[in-house]
């Protein structure tokens, strides 16, 4: 470790805009990444997340805005001077070089002495568990091995920032899940500021310190996994993360939000949205026994089961209420509730704790 250089730098993106003709890939995006944190840019294809990552790496020039690493403004700095490590989606390994030569490449460019260079390369390969593969050609490696070479090459020269563009998307499910954990451990070990791009919400929830949800070139919400999941700020985040049921709410004269005659909550202050929705996470719904006492801390929904699907450790239930709304509920199959006795077409009552409900401004994205 170089003692007089910080282990990692913070990144601040201010009002970054990038357009291609009439299409705005990034629309005045501002994000602050803390030094050492693992931030994920999460969004569907075309959301702008990769454009943002590329802007940070220097592979596209923004139309306006600023990018700073720590205290320095790097907005106009060419990519080869930015000192960031990057892992591309298709790894982009050099096919005409061996594994060792690939990883040594950045060190060779920085004219590191041979002894030290060899040491660093082997250290990096050890970290990714590929020390026996040093002399292999790239086309002899499997997908997972190539991914690890790309990783080793990205951090071997001790960058203060690491960028990853959907590095696990080409791997099969089991390998992906293993690599997610390995990447998390690597991040803990290196302590380097990491910006990670993915469209897989489960991956984002697993790996990140914070998640920035992006769509249409804008940051929809930024927060910890728990915040994003439990307190989505708008309908996009609520529907993109996890499954949800949306129930429209009505405003009453006294400044409250009402469902089925029951006052759910007060109108949150400082919000100008006209319409509001209730967002219900499927795993928060419970079945209510026929004779159970009504509790004021819960909200109740009565309806008919329209769909019941056994999916292993959980069962998915779709229910239609009297008002024609659809609720999605996920039941644990080993719970005391007698799932096996249920059938489609049956009447059922579901309940949810009032503190588990989420209210979002509808239409305010």
């Amino acid at each position: 470790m170089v003692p007089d250089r910080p282990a990692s730098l913070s990144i601040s993106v201010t009002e970054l805009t990038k357009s291609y003709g009439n299409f705005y890939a990034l629309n005045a995006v501002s994000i602050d990444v803390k030094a050492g944190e693992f931030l994920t840019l999460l969004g569907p294809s075309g959301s702008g997340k990769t454009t943002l990552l590329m802007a940070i790496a220097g592979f596209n020039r923004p139309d306006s805005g600023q990018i700073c690493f720590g205290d320095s403004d790097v907005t106009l700095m060419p990519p080869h001077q930015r000192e960031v490590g990057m892992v591309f989606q298709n790894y982009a390994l050099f096919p005409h070089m061996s594994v060792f030569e690939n990883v040594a490449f950045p060190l060779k460019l920085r004219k590191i002495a041979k002894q030290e260079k060899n040491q660093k390369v082997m250290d990096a390969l050890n970290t990714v568990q590929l020390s026996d593969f040093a002399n292999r050609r790239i086309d002899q490696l499997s997908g997972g091995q190539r991914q690890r070479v790309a990783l080793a090459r990205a951090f071997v020269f001790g960058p203060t920032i690491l960028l990853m563009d959907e590095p696990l998307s080409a791997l099969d499910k089991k390998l992906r899940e293993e690599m997610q954990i390995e990447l998390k451990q690597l991040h803990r070990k290196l302590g380097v500021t990491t910006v990670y791009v993915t469209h897989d919400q489960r991956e984002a929830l697993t790996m990140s310190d914070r998640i920035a949800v992006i769509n249409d070139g804008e940051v929809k919400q930024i927060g910890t996994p728990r915040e994003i999941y439990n307190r989505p700020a708008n309908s996009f985040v609520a529907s993109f993360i996890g499954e949800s049921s949306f129930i429209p709410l009505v405003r009453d004269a006294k400044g409250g939000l009402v469902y089925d005659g029951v006052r759910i909550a007060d109108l949150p202050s400082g919000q100008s949205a006209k319409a509001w929705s209730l967002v219900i996470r499927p795993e928060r719904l419970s079945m209510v026994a026929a004779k159970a006492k009504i509790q004021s801390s819960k909200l109740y929904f009565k309806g008919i089961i329209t769909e019941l699907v056994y999916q292993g450790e959980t069962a998915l239930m779709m229910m239609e209420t009297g008002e024609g709304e659809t609720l999605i509920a996920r039941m644990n199959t080993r719970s005391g509730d007698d799932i096996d006795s249920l059938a489609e077409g049956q009447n059922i009552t579901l309940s949810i704790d009032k503190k588990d409900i989420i209210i979002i401004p509808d239409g305010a994205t």
Partner: protein
Amino acid sequence: MGRHDGGGIMTKGDHNSRGALGAKKLRAAERKEAAMLLALTIPAIIVVALIIIIPVGWLFSLSFLDETGQFSLANYQKMIEYKSYLRVFRTTFNVSFLTTFLCILIGYPLAYFLSQMPRKYVGLFMLTVLLPFWTSLLVRTYAWLVMLQRNGLINNFAIDLGIWDTPIKLAHNLNGTLIGMVHIMLPFLVLPLYAAMQRIDRNTLQAAANLGATPIQTFWQVFVPLSLPGVVAGSLIVFVLCLGFYVTPAVLGGGKVIMVSMQITAILEDQFNWGAASALGVVLLVATFAVLALASRFLKLDSVMFGRH
């Protein structure tokens, strides 16, 4: 209700026995179909046999006969002994090497430029390579003859602009031949080279830049090595074509640049000596195959073929 069994290859009886009998009939049917498909190549094979195999084979045998029709190696001996033959070989190889070298020098930047152009414009620029490619060899050779003459375009232009004072002899010599051949061979190098450059993954270049390589370092340390197979493929095509080339050296060489193909023709026109001519032809053929065989050790030849189209 008719049965659509595509030819009645199998009857109900075959299905009853689930053993080897059914499987054998299946394999036989499969082989028959493969054979019928291969039979489609027969017309092409026949013409190739008639025009290539038989004549070249005949030439091969002719080369081993002397004037009296007896078996002899005299024709090949002459090749080693006569200085004129050795000069012809040397000229042919020199011209081929020089042409190939110049094509690489001029063609690489052009191919690189084309590979960097956005898709919208590539077609337009490619037209400048394809236009000569589509134009008759004879027409292009003629154009150079007219331009390189003493009082031709180039000399007149240069004198008018003051680049040189007296007309330089650009035609009917080695210079003229090289100029003409490079012009004709250039598309044969640029097209496969461009195809190879297109196949280089852009991400690899970005990765190099990200790791700290300046654009120049990226070009020399990553792009050029990855483009080498394309260079080899193109050079091969050019070199092999140059070895057997006739028209352009015949017209632009002015009798001073004698390549193997011209020597062969001269022997036939002057002496009608089939033995000597075919021996030379065999040497040319062997040289061509040797170059290709050498290259196939380093290259997959089918990528050469399909890279161009």
